[in-house]
């Protein structure tokens, strides 16, 4: 799989660190709501289809970015801003 790093261009997946579902909204710093944190940390939509996710170009520019990918096909939709 080739991952399009927004800064370095298309690179092999082996240069990246995966960071999981990026569609989840991280509770604001300071939120003490246990359920909000539980759902954020532990529950996943895990869709078979379009997925937005974090990747870090760890053997490259070290930038984290959001990527659209289809989990049913591994087709890359592109970087999401």
């Amino acid at each position, binding site marked *: 799989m080739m991952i399009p790093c927004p800064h370095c261009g298309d690179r092999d997946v082996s240069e990246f660190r995966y960071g999981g579902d990026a569609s989840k909204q991280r509770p604001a710093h300071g939120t003490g709501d246990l359920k909000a944190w539980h759902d954020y940390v532990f529950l996943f939509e895990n869709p*078979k289809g379009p997925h937005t996710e974090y990747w870090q170009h760890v053997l490259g520019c070290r930038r984290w970015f959001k990527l659209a990918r289809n*989990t049913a096909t591994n087709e890359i939709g592109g970087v999401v801003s």
Partner: protein
Amino acid sequence: MSKHYSALALARHALDPGMPWPKAWESPEPKSSYDVVIVGGGGHGLATAYYLAKNHGITNVAVIERSYIGSGNVGRNTTLIRSNYMIGGNTAFFEHSLKLWEGLSHDLNFNCMVSQRGQIVLAISPVQMDVFARRGNIMRLNGIDAELLDAGEVRKLLPYLDYSKDARWPIHGAIMQPRAGTVRHDAVAWGYARAASALGVHIIENCEVTGFVINDGKVSGVETPRGRINAGKVGIAVAGHTSHVASMAGLKLPVESHILQAFVTEPIKPIVDHVVSWGAELFYLSQSDKGGLVFGGHIDGFNTYTQRGQFNRIQTVAECAVSLMPFISRLRLLRHWGGIQDMTPDGSPFICRTPVKNLYLNGGWCYQGFKATPASGWTYAHTIAHDQEHELVRDFALDRFEKGRELDEFGLGNWTYKQ
């Protein structure tokens, strides 16, 4: 026709080539209603149906499978069985599973080739030996076999490893479970299907469950392209696709679907007589009875439903194989394939009731689905029959993350994709 399998039956059929064997399992048309519908005709679903009938006398059961039975991970794994678990909620469950494996061929009258050849886990540092010792001690304290091996003992058992000074990590010793081993994986699906079918269970292939019938928080059936099938109780056993199926019942789970690859070389004469695992990186290898070296490593590391693995992971695993066992370099990879597995944040599974009444969940197996098959079926059947979790799976609960009761067997932290 010989319904019972034996050497004698085989001889009778050999002498009378015209005599047909009966079908291993029947494929009836689905009825409009069952006491229990199991969604998923994999190892766990079929085992559950078998134990529902055998242990609980519930025979009005249908197993509904989207494709052919055993099309999922029961036919895609590396066939290992073991019970080297050290976390309280895991040890007894997996040992129960190993005990069931030990009698399974007899129980099912189907030779699953349960080969207790022993698993050897190699340590690459003294610290790792301590970590292994903790595991081995817990096993011993729970009546499970475990032995520490020093480097010399390992060399006697596994003379083909790299003991040279070129080895990136030296072998410090190992922990061995002699009763661990391998099982012919497809036979498990077929054996359970045949035995369940003989007890009256309906096995319905090529029939996808497309929805649940839920009223007032209670499930009463499933929708399929072949019509609605009513059910007193419904059990989900579709590891790999648990999120998708559970979402049809409105559930959102601590599960992500990831691909785990597996590999087999061309068949060769016997050379690796144990299951060998390595502490440098996740890597495990055994030789099938057919002669191929079967091995695997980590998940690819990002969620996907494609059964196609990434080549960099294939390289990683080949590097492990050749570095640990340099003779493998000259052998050839015959096939590699992928299975989609449920990954949970703590690497442990679920066997439990769900917030929907009469709907039960079995999933989240991570790397350990195959070895768990008999105990999973056994305890899931109990859970469904009694509407109460079996005592062996009390910790495999959905709410454990909310409660802070993670079952982190390997100490990898809460990351589905790092387990």
